[in-house]
């Protein structure tokens, strides 16, 4: 009985839904604040100390806004898509090893499951754009799929490089394999760079925010969503950001591992995880600040001309070494 209760608390409170939700809002605050600092602005300031509650305030505000469904949209899919998007992001984040080397959901071969879920998220994006029947949304949805063709293969290849190095496709074993040396300090460095760039594309942030390019197609696939649905999409995107940062920390920075004091493992592991993933997040934010948006054809050509050959070279190197 107690065990079931503990498991329940683990899933709902810590390190489950509530913890992940709050952490992702915190990451959004870090992202916005750091982005603002890089641009010589102040960023969120009023809600809470240094504006730390601003993402939560935005979320609550969006929840209270009017929810408009376009006349011509497919009502059922239009309503379902934000929920699916949100729950998929939450689901993949539960796989991350935060408090121990195992995530809340942990099974053999979960790396492959995560990659599959990430692709399904892109397809959800496509469907959400397509069912809202706006011209801008249609173009945004097409761009999302085109971009998927560009970044997904190098993204997977960078994960495969890690899988070959650790001889495993399970996150917990990959973490354990980094007990002595993190993969970022091994020849996996190319894979790390490719992971960061393609992760940025997965999150649709500058220079890869092509599917929702504000200046070109207003907000792209998300343009018709408002109120609660938009809130769910944005929250889902925050959680996905946490996931990409956390996955980077898990695969390349040794996950939650670090020097521990006996008895305080859970707390220290969590702190290490947060520090490492914030490091990845700051890199992602810097990328967002220092580039202009690329064009969709440029993304595809860069990806196929440079990233995929580089990833293959990386695989060769890793195969020879390990």
């Amino acid at each position, binding site marked *: 009985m107690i065990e079931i209760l503990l498991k329940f608390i683990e899933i709902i409170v810590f390190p489950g839904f509530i913890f992940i939700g709050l952490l992702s809002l915190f990451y959004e605050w870090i992202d916005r604040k750091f982005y603002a600092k890089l641009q010589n602005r102040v960023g969120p300031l009023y809600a809470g100390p240094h504006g730390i509650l601003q993402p939560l305030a935005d979320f609550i505000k969006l929840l209270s806004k009017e929810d408009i469904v376009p006349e011509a949209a497919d009502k059922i899919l239009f309503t379902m898509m934000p929920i699916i998007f949100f729950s998929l992001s939450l689901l993949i984040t539960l796989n991350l090893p935060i408090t121990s080397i195992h995530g809340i959901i942990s099974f053999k071969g979960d790396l492959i499951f995560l990659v599959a879920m990430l692709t399904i998220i892109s397809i959800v994006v496509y469907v959400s754009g397509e069912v809202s029947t706006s011209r801008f949304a249609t173009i945004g949805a097409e761009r999302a799929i085109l971009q998927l063709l560009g970044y997904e293969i190098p993204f997977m290849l960078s994960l495969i490089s890690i899988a070959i190095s650790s001889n495993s496709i399970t996150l917990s074993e990959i973490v354990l394999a980094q007990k002595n040396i993190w993969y970022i300090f091994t020849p996996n460095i190319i894979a790390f760079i490719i992971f960061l760039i393609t992760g940025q594309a997965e999150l649709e942030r*500058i220079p890869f925010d092509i599917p929702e390019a504000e200046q070109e197609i207003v907000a792209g696939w998300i343009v018709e969503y408002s109120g609660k649905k938009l809130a769910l999409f944005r929250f889902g995107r925050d959680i996905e950001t946490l996931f990409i940062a956390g996955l980077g920390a898990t695969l390349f920075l040794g996950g939650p591992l670090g020097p521990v004091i006996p008895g305080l493992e859970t707390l220290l592991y969590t702190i290490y995880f947060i520090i490492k993933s914030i490091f990845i997040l700051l890199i992602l934010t810097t990328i967002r600040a220092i*580039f*202009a948006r690329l064009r969709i054809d440029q993304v595809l050509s860069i990806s196929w001309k440079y990233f995929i050959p580089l990833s293959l070279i990386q695989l060769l190197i890793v195969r020879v070494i390990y």
Partner: protein
Amino acid sequence: MGFIIPIGPQHPVHPEPLLMKFNVEGEKVVGVDINISYTHRGIEKAMEYRTYLQGIYLAERICGICNAAHTTCYCQNIEQLLGKEPPPRGNYLRLINEEMGRIHSHLLWLGLAAHQIGFDTFFMYVWRDREKVLDLIELMTGNRVITSYNTIGGVRRDITPTIIEKIRKNLDFLEKRTKYYKKLVNEEPTVLMRTQNVGILKPSEAVNLYAVGPVLRASGIKHDIRADDPYGVHDEVPFNVITYDTCDVYARILVRIDEVLESINMIRYCLDHLPSGSFKLRMPIIIRPPKGESISRVEAPRGELLHYVISDGGIKPYRYKVRTPTLANIPATAKMLTSRGDYEVYIADIPIIFGSIDPCICCTGRVLFIDIEKNRRWIWGYDELVRYSNKRFERHD
């Protein structure tokens, strides 16, 4: 017709009302239809109901950013009618104000261009530094944007040695920053990818479609009213006409950045050679020019600006006509926005190509009538428009 994408009348990067309907195939733009007649503000008609002195403030409000150019043009026009010339010091101050307006306008545009290609950090930095020139304009004229500086027969305020000192200091800062931005534009790979070979306008096309200003100069045509038909003291102040010959958006960015540097040097020259004496002619309170007509041309930040006035000897102009640079650039924009042969335009290029002419729609509204059912299009000439507007005006008065 294929898949139509409407950009405007409301759109995040073009807050001004104009509608562009793009015919697209996938990401490629194959046709464009530009409708600019959303803002008919009736300024020309309103001019006919104001005295010459009141007209300055109306001319100033044709366009907020190039207000210095508009008032210079207006005042020159009336001075030509009156047959008078402002004193040299007034002319020099006018030029300083005009060139500061140019710096302000070009820096603002540079930030917007960066925003249009999604480079928000650049946008924030440029707009932060633009504050310096706004401070200078405020220091010199008393206002930040709408300066109310020029008046018929000179300018309304003098400058003091302290202000000159401050202007020099801020100009040094601006020069340093502008040079840095030029370096950044030349070196940042994503900026180059998004601007090179985008929005091509060949020199022959630019001339045939009557493009003006930086757009024309970026196509390699050496044309600048300040050099070709000098007004004020532009024949005394040396400067280079900047041209680039790559004919794309990249060239337009560089032309504007270099013009900012030229303007800084021109202001420095003016401060060094500022003549002493009066800065304003003494004019009667009621200005009553003799019967006649006059044309005045000014190189506004966006290109050649033309004002035309007919006087019937009264205290109000009989007719006032303004031709703004954006209107002159619209046909060239339509050319730039259409794919032809090897040259392809993508949806992603639309904002930056349209933005590269530095559009100012609020001074561009025109009337063209199209009857789709009868397939008839006609343009109202002067007489019909006057008749129609008189009728409307009386009904609403």
